[in-house]
């Protein structure tokens, strides 16, 4: 059985991990901390990116806002008619704003279901209940977490206070699912007529206009045409919105990654230092093994297995702790930084998403410093004459 020799070497490598406890604990603990931090950042960033992608997917092809002195103001409805004149284009107004409800800030958004093309996916995004209908009045579809926070069910009534602080009742007809929670966590979606009454916005105005284009490839051309016809407009295509969302979260996770990089370098230095600190002993051990008949490849096999097992173990523990930190503890400190302005949203579970590529990167990061820190010194010892290596010099 030729493979028995390899089994012996693997067993010896694992035995070394448990035998040299101080080295093992030092290496594993430093790598676990580094991988836990990066894992938490990466999983959150992946989750936020996924949420951003979803948010963009539900956004209109083009969003038109109106500016005065560089600030957004309500857009006159006459511009909807201007845009509607373009070929293959349909416009739907939105009226939206913010409201305090039980000391939390929520977004109240009014839409016109008769004018807004409702994507098929919307049914998957609502459970239980339904989306708004054309003839609905004082009805609302609310975010999943808002519903859970206040124990809301379909048919329950929410009492909001309008612009003049008068009570404004809406009945819950649907609840968004968890899949779109970042986008919908703070959302109270109501018919546009109710929104106009709530925010006291006249029928000749809207907060912005959603533009839907028959052929999505034409979005950019349509955006250019709108800019030509409405000089003070700010025009956002879905692609621009998506990039803006990704950039916002990407930049945050990028900054955290820099902090993490410093941590990783420190961890690598600790791992390297551990390898160096025992280098005389390790070199002597390699010399003894060589004298006893271990080949260079046998020694590299032992150290390789040792590094892979230690690295994989560290990465696994780090990833597990990262998931616990994000899901169970809600990622304190990191959450405030990663979510930025979104942190003023009502509390909602963090969007954790684990990509295969992220897992691969984390495991590579766990194993690579150890490969460098232990296999290379082992190789240099193994190619040295056993007589010299045994002296540890």
């Amino acid at each position, binding site marked *: 059985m030729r493979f028995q020799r390899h089994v*012996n070497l693997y067993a010896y490598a694992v035995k070394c991990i448990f035998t040299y406890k101080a080295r093992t604990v030092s290496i594993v603990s430093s790598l676990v901390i580094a991988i836990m931090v990066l894992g938490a950042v990466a999983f959150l960033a992946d989750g936020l990116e996924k949420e951003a992608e979803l948010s963009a997917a539900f956004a209109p092809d083009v969003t038109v806002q109106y500016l005065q002195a560089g600030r957004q103001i309500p857009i006159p409805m006459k511009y909807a008619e201007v845009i509607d004149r373009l070929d293959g284009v349909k416009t739907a107004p939105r009226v939206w704003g913010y409201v305090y409800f039980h000391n939390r800030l929520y977004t109240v958004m009014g839409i016109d279901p008769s004018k807004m093309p409702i994507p098929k996916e919307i049914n998957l995004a609502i459970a239980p209940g339904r989306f708004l209908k054309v003839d609905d009045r004082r009805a609302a579809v609310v975010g999943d977490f808002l519903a859970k926070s206040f124990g809301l069910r379909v048919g329950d009534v929410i009492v909001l206070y309008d612009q003049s602080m008068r009570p404004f009742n809406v009945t819950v007809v649907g609840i968004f699912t968890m899949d779109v929670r970042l986008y919908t966590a703070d959302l109270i979606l109501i018919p546009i007529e109710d929104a106009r009454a709530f925010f006291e916005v006249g029928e000749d105005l809207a907060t912005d206009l959603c533009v839907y284009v028959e052929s999505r490839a034409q979005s950019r051309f349509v955006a250019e045409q709108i800019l030509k016809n409405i000089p003070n407009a700010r025009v956002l295509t879905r692609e621009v919105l998506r990039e803006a969302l990704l950039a916002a979260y990407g930049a945050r996770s990028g900054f955290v990654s820099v902090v993490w990089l410093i941590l990783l370098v420190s961890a690598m230095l600790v791992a390297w230092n551990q390898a160096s600190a025992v280098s005389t002993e390790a070199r002597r051990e390699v010399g003894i093994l060589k004298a006893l008949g271990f080949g260079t490849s*046998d020694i590299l096999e032992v150290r390789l297995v040792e590094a892979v097992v230690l690295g994989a173990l560290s990465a696994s523990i780090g990833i597990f702790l990262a998931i616990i930190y994000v899901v169970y503890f809600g990622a304190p400190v990191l959450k405030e930084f990663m979510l930025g302005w979104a942190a003023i949203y009502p509390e909602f579970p963090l969007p954790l998403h684990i990509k295969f590529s992220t897992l691969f990167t984390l495991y590579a990061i766990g194993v690579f410093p150890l490969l460098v820190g232990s296999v290379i010194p082992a190789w240099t010892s193994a190619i040295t004459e056993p007589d010299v290596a045994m002296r540890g010099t």
Partner: protein
Amino acid sequence: MIRTERLTKIYNRGESREVVAVDGVSLEIGSGDFLVVSGPSGSGKTTLLCLIGLLTRPTRGKIFLNDREVSSYSDSWQTRTRREKMGFVFQQHNLLPQFLVWENVSLPLLCRDVGLSERKRIALNVLHRLGLGSRSDFKTAQLSVGEQQRVAIARALVTDPEIVLADEPTASVDVETAADILEIFRHLKESGKTIIAVSHDPALVSEGDTTVELRSGVLAQSRRM
């Protein structure tokens, strides 16, 4: 079986701290012979043992094993030869202190297709023969120096090698243990092993078939008993 031709080893060659450890030594050791290399400290005895044991390469000269010139062979060939034909007893024992006694003894078997239970059986067998059966599950650091030396001898014998190379096997032990070790070497000699031992212990020197004396790396005297 083993022959050396004008074997020379120079450390730190070309540097101010250059040392000629072994200088033009020619020897011939037959199969089953017991050669003892003696001489004062720093005379090059250990270096000569390392050269014959293929643990270091000569600066000049040749080593023949069964009439094959092996000193210039590749590292992997020399490693295989050490694994298959040689057993070493080092002066400092060179045991791994964190491992158990039987694990230390079975180390040379790791590179062979021998499973765990068989490795342990062979190691325990050798330890029993050397009177260390009750110490097999101890860590080597928990043993006396004499016991550690016997563990080192057990490790050298665990693969049943043709050639046993021992560096000062009785140097750091008490008289009683030295006598035990001498007895072990007598048995090895009787079983037909080729033994090359470095020692200035007169008792061990007297056991050898041939005694060579090194002075400043040079072969000063060779005596066949």
